[in-house]
């Protein structure tokens, strides 16, 4: 598991840099992070399909659930960047280890649920850690100002780069710690409740969370913009017409 954790650390660190250092290249979005985690942690041939498909499901749900249409200052503190990596890593690593006890019910829905719920918890925990990092940043900024006034430009730069490294390390350690904790909890809990996890039950919970994700998406993409409802209705109608045409055996 050590090599997998190194990969989780690297990924978590890079995505934290994207979110917190200022890259803002969208790498830190849950969908991208979860898919990258799936590709990085794929255990090989017997599990390859699930190791790719489950993170994709986790990423899609987290993307819709964790996209907040408010301005950053008005948002609740959530670390969406590492949430995708942690959720997908817990799902894939647990799937590989716990498969003898907990089978793949209804297309891996159970593991998508495990990954999504873990990712949501990780987003909340990561948000709290981000707040403590900012308090530390203020102390570093004061020190940086002192160094600048003393004309110690090299020391100022070194201090700044240490701030960049701190973001990477925070993302890496948080991703590894949360993944280890998640896999440990899953190993402890899931085999004990394996009898309760039926296909229909997992399906109900999955459908409810998918519904919540779409409700959150409605808030973000339709309610927030002006005339959003009108444009969404046009999009839905056009797509339905195309689908009906295809269903009737016609061609586009």
């Amino acid at each position, binding site marked *: 598991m050590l090599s997998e954790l190194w990969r989780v650390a690297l990924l978590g660190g890079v995505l934290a840099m994207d979110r917190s250092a200022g890259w803002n290249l969208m790498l830190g979005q849950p969908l991208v992070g979860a898919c990258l985690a799936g590709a990085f942690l794929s255990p090989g041939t017997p599990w*390859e399909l699930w190791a790719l498909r489950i993170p994709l499901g986790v990423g899609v749900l987290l993307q819709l659930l964790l996209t907040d249409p408010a301005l950053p200052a008005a948002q609740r503190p959530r670390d969406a960047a590492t949430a995708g990596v942690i959720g997908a890593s817990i799902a894939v690593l647990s799937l590989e280890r716990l498969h003898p006890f907990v089978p793949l019910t209804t297309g891996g829905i159970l593991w998508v649920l495990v990954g999504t719920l873990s990712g949501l918890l990780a987003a909340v925990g990561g948000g709290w850690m981000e707040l403590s990092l900012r308090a530390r940043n203020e102390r570093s900024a004061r020190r940086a100002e002192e160094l600048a006034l003393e004309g110690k430009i090299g020391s100022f730069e070194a201090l700044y780069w240490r701030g960049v490294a701190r973001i990477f390390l925070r993302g890496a350690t948080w991703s590894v710690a949360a993944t280890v904790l998640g896999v440990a909890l899953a190993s402890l809990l899931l085999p004990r409740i394996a009898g309760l996890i039926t296909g229909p039950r997992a399906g109900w919970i999955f459908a409810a969370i998918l519904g919540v994700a779409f409700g959150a998406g409605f808030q973000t993409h339709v309610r927030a913009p002006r005339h959003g409802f009108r444009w969404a209705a046009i999009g839905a109608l056009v797509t339905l017409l195309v689908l009906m045409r295809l269903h009737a055996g016609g061609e586009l």
Partner: protein
Amino acid sequence: MSDSDPLAAPAAPGPGAPGPAASAGAAVPGVRGIDLVRVESRALYIQALFSAERQQGPGFAFALLPVLRRVYTTAAERGRALARHMGFFGTHPVLSGIVLGVVARLEERRAQGLPVSELQIEQTKRALASPLAALGDPLFWVTLRPLAGLMGVLGMAVLPLADTAGPDLRVLVCPCLALLTYNAVAIRFRVAGVPRGYAMADDPGGLLRSLHLAELRRFFERVSALAFGALVALTLWPMVQSADPAHEGFAHKASVLAPFVLGSALTALLLRRWPGRSVEIAFAAALVALVLSSRF
């Protein structure tokens, strides 16, 4: 890239005016293209020491350092200029290059001894940062970022499911769609920001108008709503089609679709009352669904 054009506006009285070179009478090297490239690359780390008090202030100073190194000759001058930029600064990170470019030009002129005061540089910086944040945040954070994520999700709904023999290519295509949607717009502003700000330092109003940020936002808002409508149709269609494979009737179909429909409707209502609480709502929905699935 040095320039000797006088500023259009007269210099405001302030500390440090005129610039250090005027008193020293020394020749000051102008800013080179490579300096602007360095500023641009450092702007990628503008939020590394982000705090509530100064926001991107330390990052702004860090990004501007290649220019300060070029135009100020002594460590003391560089240090003083660096410390001046360490105060509060907040704008959208993608658009920060524009302010950096303008300030690079003003610092260059100040170092050359032209009548540019510290106060004038600070005022120009703030006058640009605020409207760029007011226009950039709604465009990039509120509209384009959610749209990019949505395009990735839409990719999953549109692309066919992989067969069991091969890998699922959607895992590659969906994140790429999200990355391309966002960066097709953002990278343009990133790359052009510093040189554009440097070239248009004398016309901040024209600079802001030339970016067309409000128009871009309106366009992407519509695309976002359109794409979400398409996603709803693409998700509901197969759900409705496959909800009743044994033709047990409407009641069966409704019971299968109920968790999704109720979850969506209740979330839309609850988020109106408690915005940003989707995590809490998701856990509550999972719990309710677990309890209800045990009863039926």
